[in-house]
């Protein structure tokens, strides 16, 4: 029983990471119907910038976190302006291929600059090394911090989306970008802002992973990216609370499967969940059905 709770605690940490990444996928899909394949590489960049910040610049955790988030935000916005905006009215496949191109470009450029090897984050100091016992369950401060930061970011995100004008603009553009434009909303700015938010969250996830799991490499984004995407689909692609729920669900399931059975099946279970969702309710947990008008 205790093992179960321990696994769930671990799952919550992993789930936080997936949730942060999934939010970026879901927001971008919601607003321009694009599966942003490059998103997982922004996450990877967050991890690398965090690494660079903590080793070369010798900054502390919080400044590094902020630096990662800022860098990723800028990268995300630049990618959107340079690669996706010209294809706003192109076919789905064309944008998808472009996204793949961007993803490969980021991966291989990082490899060229930083080498393909796995790097380890510098040894942690101070509060990051502590842990405490909850009954018989071991909870590390890292896990608390990951959960804490994730919750803070999610609350901020909800605030922005629900209570600010730009948030309202984001919701409007996801529903009908032409109508939104006619109502005076600057669609381009809104889309850029969406990318900025999603990328910031991914960047945060990257550095958190660096601290928690310790090792990073240029291709680290692939598998977590796909799983976070499954999480977004599970919760309902395009729906922000869905990504949050989905992230935690996939994280906890993955840890439980890994803990209680053959860990090679861990990844398979995630994809099996994907297939089940798509067959039973493709619009996801919180999604609504929409029909084409004939």
């Amino acid at each position, binding site marked *: 029983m205790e093992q179960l709770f321990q696994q769930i605690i671990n799952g919550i940490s992993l789930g936080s990471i997936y949730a942060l990444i999934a939010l970026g996928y879901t927001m971008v899909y919601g607003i321009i119907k694009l599966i942003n394949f490059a998103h997982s590489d922004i996450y990877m960049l967050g991890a690398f910038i965090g690494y660079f910040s903590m080793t070369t610049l010798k900054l502390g955790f919080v400044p590094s976190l902020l630096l990662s988030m800022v860098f990723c935000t800028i990268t995300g916005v630049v990618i959107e302006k340079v690669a996706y905006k010209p294809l706003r009215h192109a076919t789905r496949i064309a944008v998808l291929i472009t996204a793949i191109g961007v993803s*490969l470009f980021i991966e291989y450029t990082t490899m060229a600059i930083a080498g393909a090897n796995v790097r380890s984050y510098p040894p942690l100091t101070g509060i990051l090394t502590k842990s405490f016992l909850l009954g018989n369950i071991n909870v590390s401060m890292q896990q608390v911090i990951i959960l804490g930061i994730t919750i803070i970011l999610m609350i901020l995100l909800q605030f922005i989306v629900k209570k600010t004008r730009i948030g309202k603009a984001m919701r409007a553009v996801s529903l009908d970008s032409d109508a939104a434009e006619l109502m005076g909303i600057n669609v381009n700015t809104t889309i850029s802002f969406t990318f900025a938010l999603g990328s910031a969250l991914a960047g945060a996830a990257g550095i958190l992973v660096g601290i928690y799991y310790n090792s990073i490499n240029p291709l680290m984004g692939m598998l977590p990216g796909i799983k976070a995407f499954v999480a977004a689909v599970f919760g309902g692609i395009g729906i922000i609370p869905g990504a949050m729920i989905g992230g935690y669900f996939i994280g906890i399931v993955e840890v439980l499967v890994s803990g209680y059975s053959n860990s090679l099946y861990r990844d398979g279970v995630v994809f099996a969940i994907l297939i089940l969702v798509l067959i039973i309710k493709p619009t996801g947990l919180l999604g609504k059905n929409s029909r084409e008008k004939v």
Partner: protein
Amino acid sequence: MKKLFGINWIKTLVSLILTFVIIQLLISFNIINSYLQSTLAAICINIILAVSLNLITGFTGQFSLGHAGFMSIGAYVCALITLRMPTIPGFILGVLAGAITAAIIGVIVGLPTLRLRGDYLAIATLGMAEIIRIIFLNMDSITNGAAGLSDIPQFTNWAWLFFYTAGTIIIISNFIKSSHGRACISIREDEIAAEAMGVNSTRYKVTAFTIGAFFAGIAGALYASTFNFIDPKIFGFSKSIDILVIVVLGGLGSISGSIVAAILLGIITTYLQAFANIQMILYSLSLIIIMIFRPQGLMGSKELSLSIFSRLGESFKPKKGRV
């Protein structure tokens, strides 16, 4: 009124024979050395993969991101058969069994997933291919898991490659030009209208998917018999993307586009082998640039036709009325 062996048929036959003979000669005189022969094999395999994916995605409009999954089925089945029957009949059986198994899996995967549209279908096919890969990874006793299968007997030579590649191109082109092929295309154009005109869209989507899977299985079998080592990693998401890129760059809905793109990319990859990292950076940049400036790819949905040669020929004929 059309003759059974019309002029088009003869043109095709002649070009096929010429292609085969010319390249065979180049091989025999070692102008195409064994390194280039690998490239040739890779190009042929990619042509088969691209043309079969084009049938599914370009002509029938079903967005499939899992084509490498079918390739892996063909590869493993063929490898397992030829490892136990290292003879030419074994090879033929291996390819056939690989293709048929892939096709069967194609039906099984296709039936539930082809109800989905657009992005959802893409994700589902991606998930399916990953599940296939993970299954192969875990079937240690049969597939040797992550270590892969090695020393697979090598049977492919130019003759076999040519046979299968030309066969794939001809069969799929013929299919496209038939009423069944047109039914598939109508689904791409407007599924609701197609259904209203009597086309069972689910049936034809699954048909196209299965045919595509069949030929992907052939490609996988050829891959195993050429490069004599396979492991699950080879047939991951990256491979599916590579094939899709060839199809898109060549032009969705253009068979000749897929062929040209596969050849071009194969040649470029070979020349840039030395600069591996730079190659990938350039490749990714070109993807972005080409999609921005020419999203319809090289040929759009048009086909390269031999009429170019007859138009050239016209300029050499004496004009009527002149001496």
